[in-house]
């Protein structure tokens, strides 16, 4: 009994160390000076801790705050657009009865089943012809393409859980469908709506390949893409600056994740067992 608990503790400790080690390395490096960060014999913790790397983000040559704002704006817009489109779609899939419902529901998921890179070329061409390349709007379109299917399915799961009598009461009370959705269903699934929005937001935030491909002007770039383009030079890499930028990129995501992780797990697992 005791032996098995020790084994469990060791296993969990290893898993935890494995997961946290890169994050620790990111944090530690972000506080090292240039010399220490690129030393051939790396130090486990910053011997001469400095905030220079973080100061460099704000006052340096790179428009780091602009990257941050770009990312926040496009990701928030993506979350808003995706939820606004997904809500009525999810409501129809949940409540309407039509012959091809199952086919439509899975059809929506198709773009999610494809690897991101497969979407890249067609999206690029579409944005090119729509004159949306190198624009925040184009980026929002791209992010939404990828985030929407998941948003529809997740919201459908939450709507499925609302007892139908509540909606029927509102119909008897004389309300049209869209008002029932907004005044009865949405308030009841508000945690689900926020969770879905956060999920889409995080998805967009993590997306590296779309901004790298669609954006050409450095000043319009998002954080993850800017990290890659800005800190790796031909002759040297600014590890400390990169890790400080990475930390700033990660923090909002971690906050968002911890805010909704409980209901996110509920939404995900509910989706796993609920049929169409």
């Amino acid at each position: 009994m005791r032996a098995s608990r020790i084994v469990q503790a060791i296993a969990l400790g290893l898993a935890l160390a494995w997961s946290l080690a890169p994050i620790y390395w990111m944090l530690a490096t972000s506080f090292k000076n240039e010399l220490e960060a690129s030393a051939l014999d790396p130090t486990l913790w910053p011997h001469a801790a400095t905030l220079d790397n973080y100061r460099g983000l704000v006052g340096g040559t790179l428009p780091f705050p602009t990257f941050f704002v770009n990312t926040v704006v496009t990701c928030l817009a993506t979350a808003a657009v995706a939820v606004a489109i997904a809500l009525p779609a999810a409501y129809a899939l949940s409540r309407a009865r039509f012959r091809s419902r199952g086919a439509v529901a899975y059809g929506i998921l198709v773009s999610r089943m494809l690897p991101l890179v497969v979407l890249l070329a067609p999206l690029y061409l579409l944005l090119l012809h729509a004159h949306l390349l190198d624009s925040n709007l184009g980026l929002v379109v791209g992010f939404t393409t990828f985030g929407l299917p998941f948003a529809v399915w997740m919201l459908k799961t939450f709507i499925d859980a609302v007892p139908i009598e509540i909606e029927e009461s509102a119909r008897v009370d004389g309300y049209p469908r869209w008002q029932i959705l907004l005044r009865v269903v949405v308030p009841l699934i508000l945690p689900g709506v926020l969770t879905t929005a956060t999920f889409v937001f995080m998805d967009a935030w993590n997306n590296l390949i779309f901004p790298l491909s669609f954006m050409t002007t450095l000043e319009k770039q998002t954080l993850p893409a800017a990290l890659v383009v800005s800190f790796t030079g031909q002759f040297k890499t600014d590890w400390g600056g990169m890790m400080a930028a990475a930390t700033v990129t990660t923090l909002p995501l971690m906050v968002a994740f911890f805010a909704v992780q409980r209901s996110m797990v509920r939404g995900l697992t509910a989706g796993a067992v609920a049929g169409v």
Partner: protein
Amino acid sequence: MARISLRNVGKRYDDVVALAECNLEIADREFVVLVGPSGSGKTTLLRIIAGLEHMSAGDVWFDERRVNDVDVGDRDIAMVFQNYGLYPHMSVYDNMAFGLRRRKLAPADIDARVRRTAQLLDIAPLLARRPRQLSGGQRQRVALGRAIVRDPAVFLLDEPLSNLDAHLRVQMRAEILKVHRAVTATAVYVTHDQVEALTMGDRIVVMHQGRIQQVGTPAELYDNPVNRFVAGFIGTPAMGFIECSVERTGNEVALRAGDARVGLAPQRAQAVDRASTVVVGVRPERLSLVDDASAHADTLTVRGVVQVVEMLGSEQYVHVEVPAGMLTARVTRDRPVKPEEIVTLRAAARHLHLFDAATGAALTAPVRGEI
């Protein structure tokens, strides 16, 4: 205020017929109860009247208006659902006011109506609460209040008492009837509980397998069931049935089950016609336990083995297996009875219900008014 007419209403789901040829006239302000076992189509019929369910055939009329294609919200109905269907995110007040606001009433008018209705239902102190802060009985009252506050023409109730405990249910039955008298709506009430149906309905509609079996007042259904299903469904304990062969000697017609033999009055003998067997139904209160086993021509006297005795305090139900059937007798406790005991049951011939052995249709009702 509305008359409701259902004309040839039918509903099918792919190959399954859920409702067939339902014809029903409900008078203005009447309280009609749809009763039947689960799957009988009673809730589907109610939802068709509400407009929540599409019908496959037929017409629904409210007064002179054909409402087949009228949306739920425009039918001027109110509905109480089995699970109440209250808006969980709104206070009791807002639950009741929600429908009124849709109708663009003046806020002062809405306030007056909500408070008046809350008074009627004794929920005035609860107006600020949310549904989850209420007990089952209180939620039921709020659901009723939300339905009547709009003063609808038609008031539909789908098994509204089935989630309440027995005691509260009896209390709420009276409450609903009180509310119905206070408003001017025509009420249609669905239940699977025939006691609820008998005690509440002006008229009762008995449904089975998607068809209306019989429509009538509680007394009509109890005294003159049109078929074996209605006879067995209405009344507690249920009517007992035995299968009898028909014997004809000259002009006389008699029924025989084992040793038991009972003659039929000429008028009823005619109804039996040429049948060789009939099913005899006997209400439990028409049977008595007798010690004298001698047969009389105008009584059915059968011997059988007691299976179960149900003690109800003032009386007892004795379930007896007799040749070709089971009978239940509702008798006083003056004579103690034990399972396995052999007893003799007797019922007057004029109290027997006769049903066609094949179709279950009533052949003749018991003769009333004669000695």
